[in-house]
């Protein structure tokens, strides 16, 4: 297998993007404690700069690789597994003893996730600058550290590095929920931590085993041997099925908790309800994607045969999740909890796509991750804005909101349409491709999953009717409409909802090119493992 990395810029852009927030966090620590405005502004500036860099990265990402005419020869391979903006460019850096290396890189899938992370990180801080006034400096520091952790997860090429970032993103989360959270924040934090740690502890063990069993034999004890490097592992002969299954199980569990896949989802509603708004946005918008990304990036190519064997189970759980999440969402009385359960449903579609093992499913699943980040991120922002006004998220407390907050209602409606996958919005493109992929893999699973369109409409419109229509009642009365800065926070999300819905090529093109290439690899690897 030919794997290459390149860095057309010759400049460590990725490291800059990943560590800029961390540097920013250090900077915040130096600022005087009481200067809330200054602290907010600095954090925003750092996140904004990071977003600009991510845009530069996305803009200079070479899509030409996907063009059959220009691909392959020039880079020695057909895109996909070729990572751009590798940093360091050629050889990984020795980082820790044991061959643990440092190298970052992005392919078509991770580059859009980096962009999503930078965008949501910025918007979350923008929202926070309007509404967070408690221990501001600490808050900003943790948010920025979290940002570095998440960006690292999406760019790390060494699995150990990946693990470090993975855990690094957990710690800020703990503090953010436990300090700035709601009334039952401690319980929620406990649950979140226990769940996630149970998953990642297993992953760590599996990771070490993977390096020893798979990576180490490739290059032995050579000084430039990096047994945990993704490329080393990809180049290794595949493991026997039983071993694959064990390791796959350990990794998949950690990722499934994060996604969250039914029945590992019960931390999510609590964490969401207790987390402050901006953290919910990050949690739903980015953190859940780490699970999907992990499955897509590592579980499928490294354990192809086990993944194929386990696919029916994943498809089943995905379909259950789609139905179950939607169904439970229907019964919710708290808006944030409703959105949380809708996440379970939407992420089920992502898993359906990923485990369909075809281009449409894989690309659709990856796109759906982005879409879910945008629409659910926006939903959490909206619910948060409402909460800041009325100090309630209970559906029963509201009614007739359209008459009081027309702008808010329109934006909510747009996001709602995206969430239920109305054509013309991003939700439709991702959902359609995922369903099509799922349908190709398994007609029954795809067909059952497609019923999600009915369920989604049912709970979302039911919510909308109760909160926005009817006579003005309860806490709705007299609420001020969206302010300028709030509109500004929501604007990028609304624009992207339509952009991706109408002209998805901008982000679908790199995603699908990478998905197609990875699929080729997984396909052949699975066959090799099958004994060809």
């Amino acid at each position, binding site marked *: 297998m030919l794997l290459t990395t390149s860095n057309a810029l010759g400049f460590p852009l990725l490291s800059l993007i990943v560590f800029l927030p961390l540097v920013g966090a250090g900077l915040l620590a130096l600022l005087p404690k009481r200067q809330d405005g200054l602290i907010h502004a600095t954090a925003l500036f750092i996140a904004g700069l990071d977003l600009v860099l991510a845009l530069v990265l996305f803009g200079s990402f070479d899509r030409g690789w996907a063009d*059959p005419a220009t691909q392959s020869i020039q880079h020695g391979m057909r895109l996909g597994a070729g990572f751009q903006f590798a940093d360091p460019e050629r050889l990984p850096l020795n980082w*820790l003893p*044991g*061959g*643990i290396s440092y190298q970052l890189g992005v392919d078509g899938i991770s580059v859009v996730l980096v962009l999503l992370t930078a965008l949501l990180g910025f918007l979350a801080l923008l929202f926070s600058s309007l509404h967070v006034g408690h221990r501001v400096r600490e808050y900003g520091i943790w948010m920025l550290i979290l940002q570095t952790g998440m960006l690292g997860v999406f760019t790390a090429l060494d699995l150990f590095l990946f693990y470090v970032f993975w855990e690094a993103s957990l710690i800020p989360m*703990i503090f953010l929920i436990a300090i700035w959270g709601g009334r039952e924040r*401690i319980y929620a934090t406990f649950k979140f*931590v*226990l*769940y996630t*740690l149970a998953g990642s502890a297993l992953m760590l063990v599996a990771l*070490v085993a993977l390096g020893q069993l798979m990576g*180490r034999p490739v290059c032995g004890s050579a000084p430039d041997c990096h047994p945990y490097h993704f490329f080393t592992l990809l180049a290794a002969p595949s493991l026997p099925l039983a071993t694959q299954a064990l390791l796959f199980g350990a990794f998949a569990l950690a990722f499934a908790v994060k996604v969250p896949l039914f*029945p590992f*989802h*019960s931390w999510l509603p609590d964490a969401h309800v207790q987390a402050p708004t901006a953290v919910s946005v990050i949690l739903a918008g980015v953190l859940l994607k780490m699970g999907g990304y992990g499955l897509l990036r590592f579980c499928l190519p490294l354990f192809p045969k086990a993944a194929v064997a386990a*696919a*029916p189970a994943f498809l089943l759980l995905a379909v259950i999740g789609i139905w179950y999440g939607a*169904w*439970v969402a*229907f*019964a919710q009385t708290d808006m944030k909890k409703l959105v949380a359960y809708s996440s379970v449903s939407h992420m089920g579609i992502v898993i359906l796509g990923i485990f369909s*093992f*075809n*281009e*449409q499913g894989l690309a*659709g699943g990856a796109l759906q991750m982005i879409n879910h980040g945008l629409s659910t991120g926006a939903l959490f922002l909206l619910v948060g804005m409402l909460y800041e006004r009325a100090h309630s998220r209970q559906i029963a407390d509201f009614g007739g909101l359209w008459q009081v907050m027309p702008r808010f209602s*329109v934006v909510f409606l747009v996001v709602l349409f995206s969430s239920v996958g109305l*054509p013309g919005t991003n939700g*439709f493109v991702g959902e*359609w491709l995922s*369903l*099509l992929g799922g*349908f*190709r893999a*398994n*007609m029954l699973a795809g*067909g059952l999953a*497609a019923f999600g*369109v*009915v369920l989604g*409409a049912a709970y979302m*419109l*039911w919510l909308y*009717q109760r909160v*926005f*229509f*009817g*006579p003005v009642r309860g806490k709705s009365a007299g609420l001020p409409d969206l302010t300028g800065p709030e509109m500004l926070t929501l604007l990028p999300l609304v624009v992207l909802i339509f952009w991706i819905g109408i*002209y998805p*090529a901008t982000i679908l093109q790199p995603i*699908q090119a990478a998905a*197609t290439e990875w*699929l080729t690899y*997984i*396909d*052949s690897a*699975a*066959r090799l493992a099958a*004994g060809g």
Partner: protein
Amino acid sequence: MDLRDYLWLVPALPLAGFLILVLLWPWADALSRRLPAGRGLPPMLAGWLATALVGAAFALSLGLGAQFLNAAAIAGEDAGHEPAEGVAAAPEPYVQRLWTWMEVGRDQVEVTAARADLPQLEEIPVGAVGPSWIAVDTVRQLNPKALEALGPAMGRMWQPELTAGLRPVGADIPAGGLVTLDSLPPSGDVALENAAIAQPRSRHRFAVDMALQLDGLSLLMLLVVTGVGFLIHLYSIGYMGQDAGIRRYFSYLNLFVFSMLMLVLGANFLVLFVGWELVGACSYLLIGFWHQDPANAAAGRKAFVVNRIGDFAFIIALMLIWSVFGSLDFARVFSQAENLLPLGGALAVAIPALLLFGAAGKSAQVPLYVWLPDAMAGPTPVSALIHAATMVTAGVYMSARAHALFDRAPVVLAAVAVVGALTALLAALIATVQVDIKRVLAYSTISQLGFMFMGVGAGAALAGVFHLMTHAFFKALLFLGAGSLMHAMEHGFHHANEHPQSVDGIPAPQDMRRMGGLLKRAPVTGWTFLIGGLALAGFPGLAGFWSKDEIVHALHQRSAAEPLFLALWLMALLTAFLTAYYTGRQLCMVLFGAPRSSGAAEASDSPWVMTLPLVVLALLSVIGWLPGNPLAEHSLLATYVLPVVGGEHGGLDAAGAATATAIAFAGLGLAWLAFGPGRRLIDADRLAQRFAAVRRLAWNRFYVDEFYDRLFVAPFKRLADFFWRVVDVGMVDGLVNWVGRLTVGTGQLLRGWQSGQVRAYALSVLLGAMVLVWYLFQQAWGG
């Protein structure tokens, strides 16, 4: 100038209206307020702007139509058609590709297997670039005989792809999934399954364009949508002029016209689906336009969710279509339908059956019709535009458009006719007892849509489309007329300074029991309403007469050989009678006799913006059948739409026309005798008593809503609660908490370590992990 280059402009104009009203208006409004003595933009301007843009779209459509006819004439001459008859050939469909909407995957022939006795196949490079079905095409060129053998096997050929689940990547495909020439038996009788020549497999390219298509059918729909749409916009200026939400109203209306145009112009199933869903969303917004009333909002939601149930089937149909054809383009799918769908095969039945279910949702057919009567909660022009003339006919349009797929499954076509007949009869029965002027029309619409389905199902899609067109004229007229009459009644009540209560939940101005004599009070509206009603009842010579009877005729023609169609024909006749009856009843109750309330007594006619559209539509209800004249062999519809929708050009015979006339007069006569002015020969009350049981059922709409509520809605809600409180909180979470408590309980033993602070936990976990990792490194390093 080739106007077709500007085809995109037709939907773009109303879209621009929507965007201007939503995005620019508030800004411009605020700006104008800042001017000295500025009072903001006049709200009525929004209405005129929206109307003008739809009018422009109509003008452009007219231009496109003229060019279409012109091109057809030229093409006809070029093709050497007999010029004596002056018949032109329909031009080729024009497809305008705007941009690539979605594109996933590379073109690749993944598996190339071959019959060994076809040496030419070696010329197909394995892994060649090109969609998998290109291989099939190649085979056709290379060896036509091979394709013959392939034809019946195609259905089976696709089975692995469709049913094998994950097998494509799985283990049981030999030699890396590539069935090579070597792996097949060398010669002779290879089973057809093994002879699969190009088997599309895991690597497919899915691509779909934003593309518009102009042909006879879409042109017709284009003219109906923009034409009727324009008139209804104009009418709305009068009807909605005093409403506070006028800008919102017109922005929705423009968005609707845009969506409907996408639906009828789409060149592939997915663009059609865009329009299909967006019109549903607009319908949702417009039904709940006066959302302060929870009942309206609930009606909108019901419409959307019921529609989505149909859309669910539609989506599955689309996925199946793509699985079979590797494309969603109309041109590709319809031209390949005969090759790829064996007549009566499982897929050939499944695809149109699912499409039918989708159509039943959008076009309010049994069993999904329940949303449409409630949809009357929206403003009346909306009922005219969306829930009578355009959106609800989308199912008919789609089935006519996709007739190539329906033709592959005669059983499904029969089902279309049965669904149509049942719906038509059921809705007509319900309509006979309603007293809400809009509700009668709503059930009448459902019933007439059933007629259109009968036409499509009988293989006379053209008749169905013909009826779609005439129905758009006279039903829009009736709804607008009803709106105008309600307006007049409101005025009357206002004038008399009365505020009557609703009876049976029906607001006074739309209660037919309080009307009467309105023909005199509001003459323009009254007379046009009368014309519309007569057209609906099938009064000889009016638009509805021709189109409805072409459908009845088509059913009759098939009834000789097929007993099912005999039954359907009789049902259609009965429905036609009921239609004439309930229409006559409505006309009598509304227009004739003495006023039965101060509202009716003091009513006055509406302003010209409202009556002008009525007059135009009344004219169309009289002469609007000419393009589809069943008596002419080469009517416009027969020449240009028939090639698109396929099937027979029905026509009409003298006996059929006589029967239809007799039935129309019988129904109207009965109604006149029972409800007409003067001495009543039939006592309506005794009639009601005679049919008390049916009447009660019909009055309560056969309890279908209650039935659905008990069977689906209530259990759904109960289960939702159960899943949440019992399963999720109780079981899933309970288990987690139990594990958690167990952990904590164990931890009590190590209490010294437990500080109870999350920070400490995180820290210790991190430290622990690091120690472990270090240990392993040392191991690794050393060994």
